[in-house]
């Protein structure tokens, strides 16, 4: 059983690479924050790297402002750097920053994006270590149901060392505009075998690359159910 996907546009950002081509070939640059130009003035304050990256890649998609898309945000670790700061603050000072706490929820990018674009379209946020696979599935099903375009935005920032978690250095994000028809055709299929996404950075880069090309390509997005992998096949 497969789920059809139509990719109408894509974008990519890495803190360590100037372009998608550089990310794919491993040409690094000095660490650079995203521009996230959709947020202006006070809306930019206290935003985390993961939020900034989400906003940046969403802002680079060819969205029709007259018909705001629904949004699906996917993140394995969420606002993990903000959580680290909040915990340190209350341990040290018995107070936390209200602005930082307000932006500590996993759906902070979703809220900021909807305010910045004045969009009342529904939005959801998928998390956990299979967030890339589950995010694709959620976005594809939403696009089939909604009759409107759907943005899938995937991003993660490095996990602070104190968490003793994954050790990725770079912040990375990719976004895809999905529709019900047209664009780059692909499908999602659930295939036997478990897959651990050990390198989400390269997976996102290859996704964005495949969406922009015309060759067939299959990418394992990770385990979507025990012993089964979700595969994204560009056809």
């Amino acid at each position: 059983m497969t789920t059809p996907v139509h990719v109408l546009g894509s974008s990519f950002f890495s803190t360590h690479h100037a372009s998608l081509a550089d990310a794919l070939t491993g040409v690094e640059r000095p660490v650079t924050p995203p521009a996230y130009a959709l947020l202006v003035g006070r809306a930019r304050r206290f935003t985390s790297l993961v939020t900034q990256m989400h906003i940046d890649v969403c802002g680079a998609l060819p969205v029709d402002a007259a018909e705001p898309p629904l949004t699906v945000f996917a993140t394995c670790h969420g606002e993990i750097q903000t959580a680290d700061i909040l915990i340190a603050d209350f341990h040290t000072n018995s107070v936390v920053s209200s602005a930082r706490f307000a932006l500590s929820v996993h759906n902070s990018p979703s809220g900021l994006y909807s305010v910045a674009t004045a969009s009342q379209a529904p939005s959801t946020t998928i998390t956990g270590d299979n967030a890339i696979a589950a995010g694709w599935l959620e976005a594809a099903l939403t696009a089939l149901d909604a009759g409107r375009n759907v943005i899938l935005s995937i991003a993660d920032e490095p996990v602070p060392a104190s968490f003793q978690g994954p050790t990725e250095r770079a912040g990375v994000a990719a976004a895809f505009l999905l529709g019900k028809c047209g664009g780059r055709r692909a499908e999602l299929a659930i295939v036997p075998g478990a897959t651990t996404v050990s390198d989400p950075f390269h997976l996102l880069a290859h996704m964005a690359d495949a969406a922009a090309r015309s060759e067939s390509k299959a990418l394992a997005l990770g385990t979507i159910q025990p012993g089964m992998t979700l595969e994204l096949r560009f056809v």
Partner: protein
Amino acid sequence: MTSGYPITGAAVANCLGSDNRTVFEHAFSGAETFSPASEFAALPFPTQLGIMPALDNVGELDCTPTRLAAVALASARQLVPAVRAAVERWTAPRIAYVFASSTGGLEETERALAPDPARLPSGAGYRYADHGIDATSRAIARYLGISGIQMAVSTACSSSFKALASATRLIEHGLADAVVVGSADSLCRTTIFGFHSLGLIAPTATQPFTADRCGITLGEGSAYVLIERATDATRRSAIAWLAGTGAASDAFHHTSPHPEGLGGQLCMRQALDQAGLTPNQIDYVSAHGTGTRLNDAAEAVAVSRVFERPMPLTATKSLTGHTLGSAGLTSLVLAIESLRRQEIPATVRAANLDPELAVAVVDKRTPAKIQHVLINAFGFGGSNASVVVSQSPRA
């Protein structure tokens, strides 16, 4: 959604009790179960908390024994008979699991990162991968014996209703025949200090929709439902029907609601449309009702605009506290019980209702003919979701 989705199992646990029977008994009698905050943590400000009783044994789960796991297990344990019947009907790989949480086990991380381990012991041996949403949700899925699609949703206080909507998509598109939708959030210091920093924590027990309401009482809890594809067998097993879901964004402010609850209006209307119901067919609204001045005012405006009559409304957070990512499903399970009992649970501490809010707050346990209930769950980020639950399928 044609006839809707049969709900064939429902479970809840929170400060009212660790099992359905106790929760329902306390909820419908209006029991006061909030505790002094000092029973959870020493805080430099006054407040009460909805602390779960008897959080002890998670030995049944093959995961690190976190507070989140214990909170989740209290509900999941009660769902076992319904899930076993569903596994017999569909097989384990056809039963998906969508889990919702806002804080996702942050309490263990707080302990692990404490500069003085003596203040918050038990963080020793902390491993990031052993805590939080994944570890708990996978362990619960294994415990329930289901092996379908697994995903986790986190949209603050609307999380569990977003998870419910995701579950319906999995069934609708043939990727699952049944879905366990679970939600859990455990108390942690980050949320207590955080809501306090925003001036949203009530120093005494929360009083939603009253003139002197002054904030939230935070709680912890879990709630689970099992929804299935409609067949003759699942129709017979249905305890209620998921008739419609709706979702919309406020697009106004990250933490403050639109003054007229525009996102709330949109998602209530969407849920009604999907359920094929008019506003007049809803018997009461189970409000998000957090007890903050702005949230209750905005929700009251939204409800009055959608229903255009003094809508009977109850705020179950006056009983359970605000269980954050689990709030929506918690209210849903209580609404399912109200359909069974044909009674509306009271909003407690509602003696001094705000005359400026055009809603008919139910302030005592009220027998009523109830066929359809609309439930709201609104959250940070202007994330709004509504659900309609019905006693029987759509005609």
